[in-house]
């Protein structure tokens, strides 16, 4: 008791200072996320859902770079997740190569695929990227079905938890590993978004004329954002393959592509945290619906609800769920103003 009272006053300012650093916030978030499965009473199936949230967060983070930061849309991103999954699975299981190499390849191959597709589709103005990705995704899904030697088709591709330098991961440690990858990618994205690249993207979204006049090549930045998003999708796929240890072509459907759009908009457009919150939303919602009696048995109920929520958010809460905490804070300070805690409200204003 005595110890903590002398310890806290010195620790708090330090923490407050560190909290200003994005990497510290993201690492703290990662620690909490990684510890969630340890909560007493956490079932194995809940831990699996958490894994789903984390892998999908990685894909949504990349998609945020595309949709939120560069202002473009893709309707077939799930194909790139699938490519990452199969490529990483194949490299480890069939070629017997190390897991880190598989993750690298799972990032690089979709990245190159994104570059090539972008080089073709982005030359044309308008919604060509959306249409091109939609088309490519369907072709890739057919490859997933037909390229039996590579994907095992509908029989499904089975793989194992990762093995790195003789250390065999289990479900729990694979989950922690995924969280670490997510946090690392969040920090990387934060860094380039808050540097010249992020400003160029912001300029491109807000005034194409200003961006061009200041030397921003729209083509280059659109292409870069697209390739980053496909690369992240590939990494997400590799995570999926080595956490769920299974993949088949039905998983990589167009509904999952739409879920990326939903995640970024509902979570909060052009927000790193928003991508993660949105990913949690799209993964958790069907699970929650399953609990609701009656609704769970309706096919596509979560799909319909996704549509409704996206419209509600766009109309009434365009900043997305990421703003909930700060909006509640503002509301509280407004409510307390002039009533119970006048001194506290001035403190809020000063900030």
């Amino acid at each position, binding site marked *: 008791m005595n110890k903590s009272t002398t310890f806290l006053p010195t620790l708090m300012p330090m923490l407050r200072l560190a909290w200003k650093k994005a990497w510290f916030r993201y690492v703290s978030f990662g620690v909490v996320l990684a510890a969630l499965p340890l909560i007493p009473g956490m079932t194995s199936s809940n831990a699996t859902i958490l894994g789903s949230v984390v892998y999908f967060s990685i894909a949504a983070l990349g998609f945020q770079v595309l949709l939120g930061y560069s202002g473009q849309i893709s309707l077939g991103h799930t194909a790139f997740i699938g490519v990452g999954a199969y490529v990483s699975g194949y490299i480890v299981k069939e070629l017997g190569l190390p897991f880190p190499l598989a993750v690298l390849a799972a990032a690089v191959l979709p990245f190159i695929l994104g570059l090539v597709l972008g080089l073709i589709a982005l030359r044309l103005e308008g919604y060509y990227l959306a249409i091109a990705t939609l088309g490519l995704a369907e072709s890739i899904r057919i490859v997933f079905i037909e390229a039996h030697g590579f994907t095992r088709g509908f029989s499904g591709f089975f793989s194992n938890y990762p093995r790195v330098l003789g250390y065999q991961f289990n479900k729990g440690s694979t989950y922690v590993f995924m969280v670490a990858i997510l946090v690392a990618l969040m920090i990387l994205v934060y860094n380039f978004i808050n540097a*010249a690249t992020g*400003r160029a993207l912001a300029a491109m979204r*807000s005034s194409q004329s200003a961006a061009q006049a200041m*030397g921003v090549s729209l083509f280059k930045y659109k292409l870069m954002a697209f390739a980053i998003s496909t690369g992240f999708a590939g990494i997400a796929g590799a995570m999926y393959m080595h956490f769920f240890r299974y993949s088949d072509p039905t998983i990589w459907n167009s509904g999952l592509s739409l879920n990326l759009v939903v995640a970024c908009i509902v979570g909060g457009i052009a927000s790193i945290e928003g991508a993660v919150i949105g990913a949690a939303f799209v993964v958790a919602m069907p699970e929650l619906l399953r609990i609701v009696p009656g609704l769970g048995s309706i096919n596509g109920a979560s799909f319909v609800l996704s549509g409704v929520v996206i419209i509600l958010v766009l109309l009434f809460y365009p900043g997305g769920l990421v703003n909930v905490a700060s909006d509640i804070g503002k509301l509280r300070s407004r409510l307390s103003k002039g009533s119970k805690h006048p001194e506290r409200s001035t403190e809020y204003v000063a900030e």
Partner: protein
Amino acid sequence: MLPNKSILKVEHLSISFGGLKAVDDLSFEIAQNQIYGLIGPNGAGKTTVFNCITKFYTPDSGNAWFHTKQGKTVNLVDHKVHDIVGLGMVRTFQNVELIKELSILDNLLIGAHSQFKTGVLAQSFRLRKAVLEENEYRTKARSIIEYMGLGGKDAELVGGQPYGTLKRIELARTLMSNPKLIILDEPAAGLNGTETQALAGLIKQIRIDFNCSVLLVEHDMTLVMGVCERICAISFGKKLAEGTPTEIRNNQSVQEAYLGKDE
């Protein structure tokens, strides 16, 4: 092609939209360190000239020879729109083009975009060279904000600033690119008399402090006559006259073009 004492030489520039000849065989030449005015009634084609030499439009014919800050002579017509600023020519827009969601400081940093050498990877990993570069331009941006009389507003959002301030931010942004020639499309539009007077002084000061030339399009004749050393007057895309402010003021066809339009 382009004498050493010149910074820009526009030669036989033409562009038409449908049947309309917006710029018609226009030629003019700007000397190093000169403040040059381009005037003309509404719809004369002034903004279109800017759009042609900055490659927002590709002219149907003609050249725009330019002495780049790298010391080469190039035809701007052969370059891409986003390469122009890197060569040393930077523009503002008649309808102020700023990034409202960003701070004044960030808007200025966008003006330095062409100067940045580090790429997305170096920025992602916050490599030393990327951090140093970022800090270098932040310092520069702060000093230019100060120079423009906007000191202390670095962190304020651009959206919601008064119009005069927006005009100033846009002018400040041009200075971040280390330009040889700044081209301003109606810098005094929307400003009151005092603000316009301050702007005239500022433009002259910028020419000295940043060692560059200025080309400006303007309707405000006190500004044009007050700061420009040479003026080119156009109407319906064609050159009417070129000369010193006094010559332009006394020119018969210029007077007719303006009187014919106004009242």
